[in-house]
């Protein structure tokens, strides 16, 4: 896209503009639908999983304190280990997301290139 090249040289960036029909066309195109489906397959389950895993902590600790006080390793109890596991689970989900997002980037790039080619008349 001609605009992008200019922007990088520090010239007044002009936002990419397109007609309503162009946006509709891209939104309904197969590549875009694929991108959205790929994102949804990862993001929706990941979001639901982490919300449930996180709220399990206050729910279990709040409503089953005796059970959560069970000592597992020496003096360390289930409550502490479960709280600690939250940090690692959050990091793992973040890591998996970054891996999955490489696919999003690849799919998005195809759409971008096509849209900008059409615009630049190349």
């Amino acid at each position: 896209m001609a605009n992008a090249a200019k922007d990088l040289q520090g010239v007044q960036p002009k936002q990419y503009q397109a007609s309503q029909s162009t946006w509709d066309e891209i939104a309904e195109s197969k590549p875009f639908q694929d991108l959205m489906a790929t994102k949804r397959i990862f993001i929706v389950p990941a979001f639901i999983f982490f919300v449930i895993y996180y709220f399990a902590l206050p729910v279990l600790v709040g409503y089953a304190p005796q059970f959560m006080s069970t000592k597992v390793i020496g003096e360390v109890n289930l409550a502490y280990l479960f709280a600690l596991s939250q940090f690692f689970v959050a990091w793992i989900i973040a890591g998996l997301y970054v891996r999955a997002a490489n696919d999003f980037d690849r799919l998005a790039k195809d759409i971008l290139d096509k849209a900008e080619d059409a615009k630049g008349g190349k």
Partner: protein
Amino acid sequence: MSNIPLIMFLMFIAITLGITYWASRRSSGANAYFAASRQIKGWQNGIAVAGDYMSAASFLGIAGIIAFQGYDGFMFSVGWLVAYLTVLLVIAEPLRNAGKYTMADVLAYRLKPRPVRAMASLSTLTVSTFYMIAQMVGAGALVKLLLGGSVTYNKAVIGVGILMIVYVVFGGMLATTWVQIVKAILLMAGTFLLSILVMAHFHFSFSEFFGAIAHVTYHDAKGAVVVKDFLQPGLRYKPPYGPLDLISLGLALIFGTAGLPHILVRFYTVPDAKTARHSVVWAMVLIGSFYIMTTFLGFGAATIMGPDFIKTHGGTNMSAPLLANALAGSVFFAFISAIAFATILAVVAGLTISATTSFSHDFWTNVLHNGVERKPGEEVMVARISAFVVGGVAIAIAIVLGPTANVAFLVALAFAVAASANLPVIVLSIFWRRFNTMGAVSGLAVGLLASIGLILISPSLMAIDPPTVVGTARHLIQAKAWFPLENPGILSIPLGFLGAILGTLISHEPSSQHKFNELLVRSNTGLGAEKAGAQ
């Protein structure tokens, strides 16, 4: 002992003023001022997000809660990290792709810009000001405590206020970013050193450390000696409402962090959405490591000094600095104190720039003047002037409230508003085709009012104090609280969503549905996203 902390404070101030001077000489213009020319690297922005986010309440507050209430304090800290998954999975990339300087940019794409920006700006200013006042009152009380009375509360508040105004007015987003980076590195280094010292005290034996945690001895309120297992839950969140309050707080964190204006603006400082994503991951590594290390700070203070000692030497918030003093003497105490001070400055600077950006970009330029600058540089100039106003107002309110004011609820309120007003409208505008202007305005209004209203009738503001409690430390309304939870999220978040959904359904706005495809494509592909560069 009294002079070393002051010298370290002054050293930090000198470094940050140097950064501000350097930043002020770099390229000017709106992109540079509001978004650091979008040239901050991913790892740098990640560190800055951590520096923007981890307030004195985290550093001193959570260490103190763990030192007095053990496990419940640690459980409390978990949500502050997990919340970043919402930022990562849902908000950061679409925001960077479709916006320019503020969260309202994303809303304005498909909705009527003026009403939506006006409400979003009001909500942003509310969140930022409440949060800032809580920080300023804390800063004043803390500086007084750390410097041993050589600086009064009022002087400390004025000092912190002037510094944050200087960073923002002269250095803009670039200076704010680097102040946050320096602070985050100091905070991580200090916390790490303190953790190592705690473990050294226990001969690097986890079984010895946890053995001590299981037998903390102190005097209870009646003066009797008690031995408690501090790993046992339930010391803070007691039935009947304790667990529910924690769940409510969790909701406010999970949905509110992704709606905090001062965190959101950080994602505009990087070149593209992919870098924004990487910066969230960097932030999560730092923030997570920090909160895990609160185990050593908090339990270390509980076991090595004991709650009795902390209570008579400055109270809960002094747990971490006192621990530093006990383990490594006065120079390390001064270092940890200076970090606490740096922590406050970096957070208030971030709050100031997000408030001024929203006022000048959303309200001044787009609401009052239909999106046109009447002369070049007006937007930046208005932002600079509003930084003076915001800073001045925060200083004045903090002084009027005084050091004993009960302000902890303001942080809960800021998160509640972010979660109940900001987040629902951002999410619905990105994901719901039917969403429209009426929905955004009513969602923001209902979320804002529900949060404020529920806090007003919560135990934070409604309680019956004994006559010994005087002045601003007294609860505002002397009656039994009508709403039993300190955190309104569990009710205000559904109300915010409901307001947004009902507002949408009762009105009809075809143009917002037509433009949905444009926002969908832009936010998911980065087509036409703002590019890096001066300008």
